[in-house]
């Protein structure tokens, strides 16, 4: 089969993931879009492994390692999302503006109210 089919699908999946990460405001949905990007990289690894006829099967083995890293990333990412939800009562990524540098009066209020526990 043609390699351009696989790499083209991978590029399309990656672009979809980029759109999802930028357009979603729920942190869990952002994590899903990150998974799409990781899978796009996996597809490339497997396709090039088959194309090179790699005797060590490096592409497929590293696809497995990417899966492992993705599992770890989702575990820690969801733990962070849960901690943020417990602290702020929201997981909307555009509502977490405490570190933003765009509204000086509101920021002064936030700092004043946050300094008291």
């Amino acid at each position, binding site marked *: 089969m043609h390699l351009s089919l696989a790499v083209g699908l991978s*590029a399309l999946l990656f*672009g979809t993931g980029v759109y999802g990460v930028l357009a979603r405001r729920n942190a869990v949905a952002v994590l899903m879009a990150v998974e799409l990007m990781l899978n796009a990289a996996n597809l490339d690894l497997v396709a090039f492994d088959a194309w090179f006829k790699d005797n060590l099967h490096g592409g497929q083995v590293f696809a497995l390692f990417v899966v492992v890293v993705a599992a770890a990333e989702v575990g820690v990412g969801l733990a962070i999302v849960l901690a943020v939800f417990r602290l702020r009562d929201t997981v909307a990524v555009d509502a977490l503006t405490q570190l933003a540098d765009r509204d000086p009066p509101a920021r002064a209020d936030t700092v004043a109210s946050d300094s008291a526990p």
Partner: protein
Amino acid sequence: MTGADVVFALLGVVCLAAAVLVVTSPNVIHAALWLVVCFGALAGCYLVLTAEFVAWVQVLIYIGAIVVLMLFGAMLTRAPIGPQPAGGAGGLDSGNRPLAALAGLATTGVLGTLVISAFRGAYVDIHHTAVGDGRVIGAAVFRFFVLPFEIASVLLLAALVGAIVLTRREVSDAEQADRA
């Protein structure tokens, strides 16, 4: 255009359509379930590319574990179940969708033109390549990739401990005294 091309193209269409629904669905639970369809179709793509073991790992880990973890996360953060007004306060999409679409299209355009023009005539001979089944991949992992494998296990352990530490609720001495 061989049979493998046709099968791969059909699976790719399913995968891409499901991926688009993952990032556009107004319901986070529906998005997670479309993620299952996307990953299942991708596992089929891996099977066409002779990566048998990777396909089963994809089904077991991605569909079996990661999507379930996503669903748990959506429920624990009390994600809005049911369709939300687009762009509203409770909506899943932020206000920068046109910009995000532009960035996604630009990324796809750059990556797509680059890789397709680079590998225009490349042909994967899937009939004369060693099938990546459990025996072959196991031999490769434990013969040539032992160190990355061990590092991955330590990484998983560290992520496990980190996730527990992050989500653990601190119980103060007074609360413990109350319970006793």
